Structures are given as C-alpha cells and as structure tokens.
C-alpha cells in the first residue's frame, strides 16, 4: 500500500505562464496593499496557490460560481480594493456578461486573469479549451486584452496590469512554456515588439505561438526567407503603428495564435492593417473547430498551428504579395 504518497499535481511545476503569474502576483502583494485575489475553487490550477500560501487573508474564495465572482469584483473595486479575478478561461466565459456590465461598463479597476486557454490546455479536452475568449473579451468596450508569451513577460505583464487603471483581461497558459526573453525584457501595455528582424514577411504572434513563430522563422531562414517576428502581447489596444510599419516594410503578414482564427489576434491585425495599410494576411489558428484531448504539442501539430504551418503560411503570404506587385 502506498505510504499516502502525494500525487504529482499536473503542470503546477515548471515555468508555465500560470505559475509565473502566480509567483509574480505573490511578489507584488507588498507593493499593492489593496490587491485581493478572487478564486472559484481552481487556485491549484491558476497559479494562485502561491498567493494563497503567502497571503491567505487576501485570497477570497467564491466557490464554483464564476458569475458572482466576476460581478463581486466590480463591488470590491467600487470600495477601493484592487481585485484580480482568476479562473480557467473557459469557465470565466460564463461570467461574460458580468465582465461586460459590472466591470467593463462600470469601468472598474478590476483584472481578470485566465489560465487554461486554447489547445495548451491539453488532455482535459475540447470542452475546456477556450478558443474564443480573446474575441469575446476584446469586443467589450474599453477592455484591455493581453496574452504574454513567456514566463518573464508574464511576470512583467502582471505588474503592468496592476499599475494600469482599468479593466483588463489577461490570458496565461497551462503547459510549461519556453523562456524567450532575458531579464532586461520590457513589457508595455499596447506595445508590440520585433523579436527577430527580417524584411520578407512579418509573423505576428501572441502567447504560446510566439515561440512557434520564432521556430518558423528559423525554418524559413533555411529556405532563404528572412521573417520578421513580432511579439504582440497586447491584443487590445493593438499596436497599429508597429503593424503599419511591418506592412510597409515586409508587405505580407502571418498571424499565429492558440485561438479561433475568427475574432482574436488575427482579426485585430486584419482590422489594423485594413485601416492603415492593407497587405496580404494569412491566419494561423484553430480553423473554426473545437479542440480535443491530447498533449498540447500533439494538438498544436494536429490542428496545424506549429512552426511548419506558420512557415507554410508565410510562404503563401509572400507569394500573394508577389502576385499583387
């Protein structure tokens, strides 16, 4: 008989974005005395267990009741607290209208931070893989939407959203994430960054897809194509100036996101480019289908959002640019 072994909790170790978020939040507690964290019985999965351990009196438990939690965050903000709502992306969607009215419309200084977005959720399967959250939250007037790319950026973004005055929706991630940025990395809400130079095509990505876009750029380089890679952690407000510059300098864009191709980053880029300086765009993401169970990397391959598919999209975009010239 096992000696009451503790189970290995899945993914709470490693440098996942949710862990980076949970640790950053814990470290920031001292700087933000009004900060409180709201949980709906998933603290073990959102990274918030770190915060609970360090500051149990500042973790408010709402039970499995996301609607009440999100609207109550509006009330907490109204009386001067700085509430950070945490949960799984998919289940926070059930408080969509609460986020709209009691946070967005009331313009509360409350933050919603969602773990478990996209295929990155893995084996829990299609029901739990939120592929529409960025689109939904982006459409709420005045809602800032952020999806950082690695643990370093997640920690910086966590501080930035606490310093920012207004409603924010931020995605973290479930699976261990590759570290992309050094300690000197800078994160500013509303700013994208060129993380690899190139002038043949621009790959614009957010979240886990930034690492894949960088890999795609390597693949393209082997074929003599110099791809620029833009890390776009703020999906709203989108960095339209940077996108315009990329459209001008490379004339072809590929977007990559762990999200439906409709309504998310790709859509934000298409809007900005359509408005500023049109150019051919290819969209890498879920092709309007739900996910399924599997490991995140397998799923990314299966649903064609890995580096080779981004590279193929880049080649198509370049062809299209040439055809227009």
């Amino acid at each position, binding site marked *: 008989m096992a000696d009451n072994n503790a189970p290995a909790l899945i993914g709470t170790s490693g440098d996942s974005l949710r862990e980076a978020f949970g640790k950053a939040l814990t470290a920031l507690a001292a700087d933000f005395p009004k900060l*409180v964290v709201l949980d709906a019985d998933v603290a073990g999965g959102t990274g918030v267990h770190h915060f609970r351990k360090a500051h149990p009196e500042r973790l*408010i438990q*709402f*039970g499995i*009741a996301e*609607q*009440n939690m*999100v*609207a*109550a*965050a*509006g*009330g*907490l*903000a*109204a*009386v*001067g*607290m700085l*509430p950070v709502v945490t949960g799984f992306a998919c289940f926070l969607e059930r408080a969509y*209208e*609460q986020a709209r*009215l*009691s946070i967005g*419309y*009331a*313009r509360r200084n409350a933050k919603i931070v969602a773990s478990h977005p996209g295929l990155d959720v893995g084996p829990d399967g299609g029901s739990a893989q939120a592929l529409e959250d960025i689109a939904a939250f982006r459409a709420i007037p005045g809602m800032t939407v952020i999806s950082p790319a690695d643990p370093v950026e997640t920690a910086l973004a966590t501080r930035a959203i606490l310093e920012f005055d207004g409603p924010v929706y931020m995605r973290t991630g479930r699976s261990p994430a590759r570290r992309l940025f050094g300690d000197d990395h800078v994160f500013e809400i509303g700013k994208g960054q060129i993380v690899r130079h190139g002038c043949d095509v621009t790959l614009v990505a957010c979240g886990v897809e930034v690492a894949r876009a960088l890999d795609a750029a390597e693949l393209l380089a082997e074929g003599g194509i110099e791809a620029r890679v833009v890390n776009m952690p703020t999906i709203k407000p989108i960095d339209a100036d940077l996108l315009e510059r990329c459209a001008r300098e490379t004339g072809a864009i590929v977007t990559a996101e762990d999200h439906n191709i409709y309504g998310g980053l790709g859509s934000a880029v298409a809007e900005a480019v359509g408005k500023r300086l049109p150019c051919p765009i290819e969209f890498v993401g879920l092709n309007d289908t739900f996910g399924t169970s599997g490991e995140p990397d397998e799923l990314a391959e299966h649903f064609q959002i890995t580096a080779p598919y981004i590279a193929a999209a880049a080649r198509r975009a370049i062809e299209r640019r040439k055809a227009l010239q």
Partner: protein
Amino acid sequence: MSIAAKLIDRNDAAPSFATGPDIEAQIADAARFTRRHAIAAIYRATSGHPGGALSCAEILACLFGAEMNFWPASVNDPYRDRFVLSKGHACPALYAIGAYHQFCSKQEALGLRKLGSPFQGHPHVRDLPWVETSTGSLGQGFSVAVGMALGMKMQRMRARAYVLLGDGELQEGEVWEAAMCAAHHKLDNLCAIVDYNKMQSDATNEAIMRLEPLADKWRAFGWTVFEVDGHNIAEILSTLHLAASTRERPSVLIAHTLKGKGVPFMEGSPAWHGSVKLTRQQAADALTALGASPEDIKDLIDG
C-alpha cells in the same frame, strides 16, 4: 470615522430629514414624492417601468430617509453606506428619492432616458456616482453589493451595504450564488430587500416561474429572514434596525408589496409591469391618484 460621528455630520448636513420628530411622516412624504416624480419622468420619457418603481417607494424612502448613512456630502466618503438598486429598471424611483434628498436636481431627474441626460433608462455609475454601480441586468447588482460588503469588511469599515432585488430577479442563478457566498463569508454588513410584488415582466411569478416557499429558500441559503409589509414605514424601519443588529449572517427583508402601488389602474394589472408608454391623460390620472394637486400635475407634466 466612526458611524456615530458620521451620524452627527449627517444631522448637520441634512437636518430636515434626520432630526425631525416625526420621521415616519417625513418618509411618507418622500415616498409620495418618489411615486409622483417617477410617474412624471416615465411619462416624459415615453418609456419606462412604472409598476416596479411604485412598489418600492417606501423601501427606498426608509433607506435614504433614515437607515443609511449616505447623503450628498458623503458621496465620496469611503465609509458611507452603499445602496445598490439591483432591479435597475426601477431607477425612476431611485432618481426620485435621490432628487428628494438632493443627490441631484429634481428637474434634471425628470430628463429620464433622454440623450445627454445622466439619468439613463438604467442606473449608470459613470453618469451618476451616487447610484454606486451600473445595473439593468438582473442579478448582477446583488453580486456587486456582496463584493462591496466583503471589501468593506476586509478594510474594517463599519459601513453597510444595502441591495434591493425584484422577485422575478430571484430566478437568476447568480442571485443564489451571491446568497450562498454572502452567508459563507458571514456578511452581517449586508442587507438585501426583496420587493415582493409577486409580478415580473409578463405575468405573476406564479405563472412564469414559481418562487414559493421563498422565505425557506433564503433560510436554506443561510440568511436571517424577515418578512415585512413593504408599504408600512414603521415596520420597514424597525426591521431594518433589527437586521442591522444581526451578527455573523446576512439578512434579507422579504417586503410584501403591490406592483403599481398608489395608482389604482396599475395596481395588479399585468399590462403595467414592463416598460410602457403613458399617455398624457394616464399620467395625469396617475398623479391625481397619487394626491398631486392640479398645479403640481401641470408642473410635473409640462414644467
């Protein structure tokens, strides 16, 4: 600042309401004003929900006229009591009681639902800070009030949160999430009032979605329950007082009311429950029934 200290401030700020010997008469006057003003505003707007505004006039008048430590000078005071109109569609009554207590101008509050007016068809906190939060989507105001009560407790503020719900509103699951949460967190600084007028948009609760046994529901969710006549000012006041001394549990007043109260052709008539357009004659008749003088009626309707 202690609540006692605040009470004194209050007496300074609004001596006419809080220090008179006959507080009940003052509140009755406020309730009468609220009904007339709400009807006039809905008439002028050519849309709005009269039934649920009329049913809660005494409740609002008791809260604003005596129970709450909340008055125009304290709108930015973090230690003020909070009131949330979760049944936001009844805002003509909220705007009226606010006007009566000088949170806003009586005349401006008649600009209900008009472009450019801060008196929107549902309360919006960015237009009118004293409404505390934006409502209109049933269920949410209650959760917001729970968040306020939680936040005030965490900050060791002794202020209280009050929230008025419709009975139809209680069909929203969010209400029961919030109820369970408030009991779990022992929010004895939270007081909910249910405007139990037995009607909702289309028909009676009974026909749409049965709520009874209603007091049992609240008790089973861990609340201290009081039942009151929602048009009896003395009973409301004393029960609010009792509720305020309940420890470790939130309390709810199930206030039995009459939808459309005060306007005979609206009372109990399902057609007047939702958003309606009043003719000039209907508005005048309603105001007459509410005891307004011909002069007042002219002012309210055309002024």
